[in-house]
């Protein structure tokens, strides 16, 4: 069955020729490096895109208790929204608890997501230092880093998440003809 699916995927590449053969009117306006820098908030798993700044768990606890605790509970225990801490060893159970510590494969994702989407009611309001500090706090609560570890553009990508080795990509490149 899998081979048939690959064949179907390959067949659909016939469309590729059609799409690529079309020409647009060329109305894209060149973006300057400054414009790109202003728009680009994403962080890759290699840390590409991490801004200058740094933070520790102690500073992050202050931010957390001011801006996060109402939705995520004391020390990331959860409720009313996602639990952020704990759950290690539950992934094979019928009701696994998927948290930053038990499930997330990359530490950089914590920074990326907090920066783009949190706090829920005021996204894009935290400074880079606050974001590094919150990330450090959540990683330290999960026992992933030491309490006094400093998170910055150099140290964060080097953090190895406990569940990192347990992910496999299901995506397969279609065969080109």
């Amino acid at each position, binding site marked *: 069955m899998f081979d048939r699916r690959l064949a179907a995927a390959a067949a659909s590449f016939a469309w590729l020729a059609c799409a690529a053969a079309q020409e647009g009117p060329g109305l894209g306006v060149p973006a300057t490096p400054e414009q790109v820098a202003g728009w680009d908030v994403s962080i890759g798993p290699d840390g590409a895109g991490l801004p200058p700044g740094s933070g520790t768990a102690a500073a992050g606890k202050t931010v957390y208790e001011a801006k996060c605790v109402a939705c995520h509970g004391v020390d990331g225990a959860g409720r009313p929204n996602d639990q952020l801490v704990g759950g290690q060893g539950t992934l094979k159970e019928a009701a696994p608890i998927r948290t930053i510590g038990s499930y997330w494969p990359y530490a950089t994702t914590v920074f990326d997501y907090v920066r783009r989407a949190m706090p829920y009611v005021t996204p894009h309001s935290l400074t880079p230092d606050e974001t590094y500090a919150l990330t450090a706090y959540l990683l330290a609560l999960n026992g992933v880093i030491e309490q006094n570890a400093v998170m910055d553009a150099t140290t964060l990508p080097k953090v190895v998440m406990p569940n990192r080795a347990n*992910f496999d990509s299901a995506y397969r490149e279609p065969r080109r003809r």
Partner: protein
Amino acid sequence: MTNRNSLDSLEQVAGNGLLHRRLFLQGGAAALAGATLLTARAAPPDVPAWMKTPGTPMRAYGERSPHEAKVLRTVNTTPSTTGTGGSRTPLEALEGIITPSSLHFERHHSGVPDIDPAQHQVLIHGLVERPLIFSMDALARYPMVSRIQFLECSGNSGALNNAEPPQQTAGGLHGLVSCSDWAGVPLAVLLDEAGVKPEGKWLLAEGGDAASMSRSVPMAKAMDDAMLALYQNGEHLRPEQGYPVRLFLPGYEGNMNVKWLRRIKVTAEPTMTKDETSKYSDLQPSGRAKLFTFPMEVKSVITSPSGMQTMQGAGLYQISGVAWSGFGRIRRVEISADGGKSFAQAALDGAPLPLAFTRFRMPWRWDGSPSVLMSRAVDETGAVQPTRAALMAARGAQFRYHYNAIQSWSVAAGGAVSNVYV
């Protein structure tokens, strides 16, 4: 007696009263008319009130009949938020294959932004020769394509992995799927203009909502049939579907079709965002998890009769529903009225479109006894919709996405239809 004889003369093709699908084709109409047990309301010749006065004037933007006002999405909001959560399409109230834009399902991660198209732009950058910004006016000048295709949230039908069958309507259980006529600009045209570098194997798509919703998309898909959709069912996108522009990736799980698209960054590797690692990844019984299970699997659901409905006595009914697959066209749909002991092939409306809803139909003579109805879809790759037991055995209780098992509806002697696990 006449009716009984007419019914008996119809060809039964599977157990418990399933009749040949040609009942709907040439020659079948007469048999159907003769067999129907429905009786017209016994009213004398009548001229109703609305024939005795001119109707209302024309209007610039239409609304449905007020008598249909009860057909609504089922809204579920995440606690402590206002706009996060989902709303489900009332599949049981709809016919054909097009979902009205007003009833298209929603799944938002931080509400619906109110975007001024004059201020909205799409940036393409990263591993490209020329980073480019496109205004909405510019995109409107590009060559467009239109296609009828489904969109399904990967969490659709997730409640069906509960130990006890949840009692809901077809839409309440499976309504995170809809099908529309989408029109827009092929993404490949814009990527070619920017000039993707050879090492650019993925892209990050980012939305302009308060969640900056973001997902990684393989370049092969982006260059194949991906579209920057500007129109849905002929008019500009609804705000809750991404106005003024969304990414549309035919057959791929819903949240990758990033709404309110504002940025495409070409990358060498996936960005590993929250919504492709901590969410929308598939935890296996082994404790290992799969990333990037993009296409939605072959699936179908009987929408009539379906959960929470009540059948009005024994007689001839039309079983009807929708089938779809993220791997291509629906090849056939098989129906059972005896809980899976026997199946027969349903009629399909028209030629199935790739990656779209296909409407299926089957005549059924219900004898009034307790029955279990099922639909089983097969797609053009040969993939067969699995039983719930097989799906649960294969995936374990941990999984929450990509549920595509056969839906079974129990019809009680009194006609009440409910969700049942077989």
